[in-house]
């Protein structure tokens, strides 16, 4: 760990904008390490995920050990420690959505995109992940695609989003 820390140069790993954004968070907090979650989110927002190099650089910048930061990074499902597609599909399979037959919808997505939970499409556009709830049970079944919440899911919606036409269009 210490060897990593010594060898990693924060400035050549993280961008100036990322460092500035992290420092802005630190300014609000009593301890630098309290900015850990925000720093991870900032880097993920810029790069899509948090690589080992970035993790080590953030740890160094926050004066924490890599183990301590890794503990936080891996605790949260939505901090990605592996590369993800351009958009992450967060598919709710919790109770309300399950009652509304979300399993069928999920099957449809998997068929169209040829991915299961935890997988990324070969064209690197989508990663499919399950989430326990998106707080929109009244409109179940629901999912998020990137930053968009999509409700009342059915085959038609899935077809429009992920169907061959849609895919061909954007390719």
């Amino acid at each position, binding site marked *: *760990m210490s060897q990593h820390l010594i060898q990693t140069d924060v400035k050549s790993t993280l961008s100036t904008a990322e460092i500035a954004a992290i420092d802005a968070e630190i300014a609000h907090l009593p301890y630098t390490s309290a900015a850990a979650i925000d720093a991870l989110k900032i880097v993920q927002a810029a790069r899509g995920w948090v690589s080992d190099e970035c993790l080590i650089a953030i740890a160094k910048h926050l004066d924490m050990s890599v183990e301590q930061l890794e503990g936080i990074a*891996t*605790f949260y499902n939505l901090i990605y420690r592996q590369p993800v597609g351009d958009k992450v599909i967060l598919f709710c399979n919790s109770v309300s959505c399950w009652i509304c037959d979300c399993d069928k919808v999920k099957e449809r997505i998997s068929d169209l995109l040829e991915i299961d939970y935890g997988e990324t499409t070969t064209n690197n556009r989508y990663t499919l992940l399950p989430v326990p709830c998106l707080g929109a049970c009244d409109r179940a079944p629901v999912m998020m695609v990137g930053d968009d919440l999509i409700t009342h899911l059915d085959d038609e919606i899935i077809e429009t989003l992920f169907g061959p036409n849609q895919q061909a269009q954007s390719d």
Partner: protein
Amino acid sequence: MPKIIVDGQTLEVSQGENVLQACLNAGLDLPYFCWHPAMGSIGSCRQCALVQYQNEHDTHGRLIMGCMTAVTDGARFSMDTSNAVEFRKAVIESLMLNHPHDCPVCAEGGECHLQDMTVMVKHRDRRYTGKKNTHRNQYLGPLIHHEMNRCITCYRCERFYQNYAGGTDLGAQASRDRLYFGRQTDGVLESEFSGNLVEVCPTGVFTDKPFLADYSRKWDLQSAPSICGGCGVGCNIAPGERYGRLKRVHNRYNHEVNGYFICDRGRFGNAYVNSQKRLNYPGLQMPDGRFKAIDHQAALSRAAHWMKNKRVVGIGSPRASIESNYVLQTWLGAKQFCAGFSEREGALTCGIVEILQATRAINPSIKQMESADAVLVLGEDLTNSAPRVALALRQAVRNKSIAMAEQIGIPEWQDAAVRNLAQDALSPLIIVSSAATRLDDIASHVHTLAPNDIANFGDVLIEHLRGNISEDVDIINIADCLMTAKSPLIISGVSLLERGILDSAAGLAETLYDHNPHTMLSLCAPEANSIGAAMLSHTDNLSLAQITERASDIDVLVVLENDLTRRLDPTSMQQLIASGTTIIALDILENETLNHATLALPAASFAESQGTLINMEGRAQRFFPAFKPAHERQPSWQWLLHLAALDGHGELSKIIHFDEIVHACAQQHSPLARLTEVAPDHSFRRHGQKIPRQTPRYSGRTAMSADLSVHEPQQPKDLETPLAFSMEGVNQNQPAALKSFVWSPGWNSNQAIQKFQAETQKPSVGVSSGIRLLISSGKGIPHTSTDRTAFAQSNGWQLIPIQCLHGSEELSAYTDEIAELAGDPFVALTESCALELQVAAGDGVILSSNNVNLSLAVKIVARMAKNCIGFSAGYTQTLSLSAGSHVQLQRDPNWRPFKPLVIASDRRPNAQLRHNRHG
């Protein structure tokens, strides 16, 4: 005292403790995992559930966690009600879902807390038929083996490693059933206390790697109460033996000294006992320089022949027992005896004894140090020079958080709550040192000064406290911290070989004492029996310099367990060898002094002999042999008694037994008068029987040597101690000094210790934590402010000795694992100094002066006093470097590492084949 009712039984409990502690103290078997007596409660495992009732009319009750519930007077609980029983059983069942069925191949099996608890709740059938979680294990270095699948996620490892011992490179990752405890990537664990994970982990996730490579079950080990010889702290250990090999070392609870934890040098550094460099037979040096093995009779008669009517001089040793040193001194007389210190060590160690015999301040036990609420460390990197003390200071700085918690009514054992409340609030720890230390991360003030200036700094602080107000803001702040503390503690030692630092520490303690009688002063001695050797020394004794100067007047020199190359500069050593004096050297391992001896006598190690060691606080503690010495090895005191008898010494020729030496020594040296009370003598019996070293289920006793003889061998007799080399005997209610191993029905793991404590975290029943022999007269030390010249810039860099946990100590460095961790000898530089020399970490630099020319690896340290550089102290390659001398530095363009990296784990299997005929 409050009373609580558990299943109708009324228990008297201590105010403020939790229900789990109360139940365990009452002898009830309430299962638990995450709670640890030294680390408190976090309520994560849910195992210690009981039902609590509102009042006597409440029959329903509600489930509570014993470890998270404080006792209140009159509270009613039930352990046995079916609710609680079923709940605890369900918790175990859920923990077992992912736990592998690998007990037979697990190194924890037979001393596993998880096994014990599973049996205790009577969980038997595995109903779960699904797949178990599996994890990738990590390489954690040569000491600790990692087997993550066995984890039951109690968080004890992280809590010990990070919260208790201050490590940062091992922690919890991920969540839910993916929870993982390890490092970010594979690599050697950085903490000096990583070995405690083996005992802290309630199951087999972290196990002792060298022990795993040469394994025996706990019940097959023969153990004895022992004392670690790794440094001056004197931690209590339990070495375990089988097939004549020291298999492993476990912590042995001593309330006043090490409590539940020891350092990695103590746990892993004792395998030198099995080293190939051990002497098996007396060796007589032949004219061609080779040694011829002879038997002990021949060796003794030859020695007697040489000594007849000749001048014989003895050199004792600060790492040998009081008894061995005493016999040598008594045999040859004080005027023909040298305590075995180097000139500088001798003066400093005697200085410590003088100070501790006079100071009015409290000379604290290691446990007492944990109560300090402001600590000043002068010139020591305690984590490397007295590791267990550093661990105690890591607890002492938490006193602020405990006080904060107390104010709002949170008990100390509510660990997560107390830490959450305090965040990074710590009691003041002031470190004044010449180089970076491993406690810098928790220090409130850090000052980097050359050794001489550390003493001056202390003197300025003393003057300030006496009213000569300094204008230095740091001095004012530090003085404030010390003056406002309830129990300030001053710690210093001899690592920098600077007498001024000791005097200034003593002066500070005296000055603070005038304001606060709770002031504590602790001084660290370098070796296991440094203080003992100093207490035995006499003003008539010779010094090593006197011996080397007049070596040609000495006919025979008897050297007791002392490698003189570590005490003398190379020129004096050469002088001594060239003098032609006949050297008779007794030692455990081959070393440079033995190589030049005419006769080398094989001494028994600490694990095969008994003796008394006096630790840094002046506490005398006895170690006992775990097994009989093999071959012609004998304890040094026995060799010396034989030699003295052959030399015609009247008094000593009447002595046969160890206890007689103890009595004679206690009689003749009044400060050691209580030596006889350190442990019961050989006649001690429990119900008329000896105390067993072997567990009741010790196996293979009659078969173990069947490859040599099918006749059932008689168990070796032990005439010297109350312990037996056998499983027969009574292992009940003996003094703690005679406890060979901890075991209690249903409690096979080391957690069984709570069955022998009146209260958890309190002294063991039938206490014997050693006897304090160093008692202060309390007359105080008059402080004379010496006018020390400030460090003058002379030509070159001043050499600062850097103590290393792995590598600086002589004997442990013979252990493969320790040698691997010690690495190359080094020069410690700051980043800016390295830039100046155009070197980086791992490069080499040449040190040169009039008498040295040495090339060493570069190590970068965070801070170093101006114009100073550090060197790895105690490494054989750096013995010629003298602390405080000046050298020139330049980059070594042709530098190559000293030795190829020893991979201990690779070497061990071969070593095992060679040694272990039963392998």
